[in-house]
């Protein structure tokens, strides 16, 4: 296992990119790891592309900027186009195959295609494609795990919306089982 995992979540604003990143970060924090979370910011947030860098590490973290991800979560085509070639050899790419029709061209990375947006709409949880793909991420990235998901969810779901805890768990499970 690597001591440091550099994850890049990327997609449209509104897809819950920052939220998914925050969940993974909080999970790491509660497991006693060093973590950092850095969002893109500015006008692009409002409907344009959004991304966030998440680092989970056994060691103190240097730069919080993920430019060469070990793990890329691409939730739209522009994100895959932009970051596919930045992933380190041997890294992993998670693709929302409902929204991205093309295949990853790299052959030196592991690729997981999850129709997250489609699954979400099938199950009536339209806004949770992010958490479905995150469920898959927790399963496939060996430095992460599906353990202890309740506490970090409780932290990232705002106090006013604690009723949404269960659907978030459902979404994570959907992705995990896919």
């Amino acid at each position: 296992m690597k001591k440091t995992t550099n994850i890049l979540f990327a997609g449209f604003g509104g897809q819950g990119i920052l939220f998914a990143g925050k969940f993974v970060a909080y999970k790491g924090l509660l497991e006693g790891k060093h973590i950092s979370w850095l969002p893109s910011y500015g006008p692009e947030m409002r409907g344009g592309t959004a991304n966030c860098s998440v680092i989970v590490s056994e060691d103190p973290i240097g730069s919080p900027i993920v430019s060469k991800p070990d793990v890329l979560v691409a939730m739209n085509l522009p994100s895959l186009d932009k970051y596919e070639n930045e992933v380190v050899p041997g890294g992993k790419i998670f693709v929302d195959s409902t929204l991205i029709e093309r295949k990853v061209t790299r052959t030196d990375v592991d690729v997981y295609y999850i129709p997250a947006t489609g699954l979400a709409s099938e199950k009536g949880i339209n806004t949770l494609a992010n958490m479905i793909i995150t469920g898959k991420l927790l399963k496939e990235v060996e430095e992460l795990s599906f353990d202890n998901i309740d506490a970090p969810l409780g932290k990232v779901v705002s106090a006013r919306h604690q009723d949404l805890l269960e659907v978030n768990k459902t979404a994570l499970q959907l992705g995990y089982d896919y």
Partner: protein
Amino acid sequence: MGEKVLMKGNEAIAEAAIRAGCLHYFGYPITPQTEIAAYMAKRMPKVGGVFLQAESEIAAINMVLGVAAAGKRVMTSSSSPGVSLKSEGMSYISGSDVPALVVNVQRGGPGLGGIQPSQSDYFQAVKGGSHGDYKRIVLAPASVQEMASLTTKAFDLADKYSILTMILADGTMGQMMEPVELETTEPVKYEKPWATTGTKMQRKHNIVNSLYLKPEELEKKNFERFAKYKTIEENEVMYEEYLMDDAEICVVSFGITSRVAKNAIVEARAKGIKVGMIRPITLWPFPTEVLNKAADKCKAFISVEMNMGQMIEDVKLAIECKKPVHLCCRVGGMIPSPEEVLAKIEEVNEGGER
């Protein structure tokens, strides 16, 4: 200290300020520091404090002057273009010797510039940045934890020396989230016998003022102020040394770029290059002495910063040009990558640039 929570750097500043007893905040919206104001707007009413969105940066800094004159802890925050607007007020605050905190979450410039992170206000922050002969304490956090702890420190230093302090952060520091442990001890209270709180008919009137029409008086004021600055230079320098024991090359970097540089240094060490870093935490007072000593051991320095080379001038002054100082920079909102810094380290290690 309490439990570790995940917070944005901007929020960490705001919460730390409130915990430091700052119950007055005045600001004006600007990216990428707006979370500070948003946090204050939410929290201040709940802790009996004042959050006021001013009509301009100019008004905000003058409201700060008013509260500071009245002896209470107070702050404002902004980003580069907004800090320029505050510079008049900052000069008055400095000339009136009242304590206050200004936070600059820097973005690219000049002019309206961009909204992505930058360190191009270094000169403005440490060289005065407004009219008159004065200095302010400038603290440069390099983690969300430091965004909080240096805010606490900034209020203490401000009160201790009756001086304007500044947190010089950047968009990355403001926006990123990291675990942070917040201060839970009661803030230190300082006596402020000079404050304009009303005479209560028990003392002569206090005047908070920066006007001295007699040159002899104004010169005396300046001399006194610079004597105070000297004390600060002697006592308040803060820096971090990283792998400097056997270093032949010394990287100098603050804030976000010091984080990037750390990655590069780890890589360079793996390649057998003896490189370390001195990270100024106080940009004024600048860690002159430690740099000067390093110049006796190291063969070269590399200043890594997000501007066209501003801190590099202070590095050269600090080491009295004993050794070459190289610049590694990106600007305009671009952040140097660890690979770029590593390439510079390798280049310098092989005998210099070009």
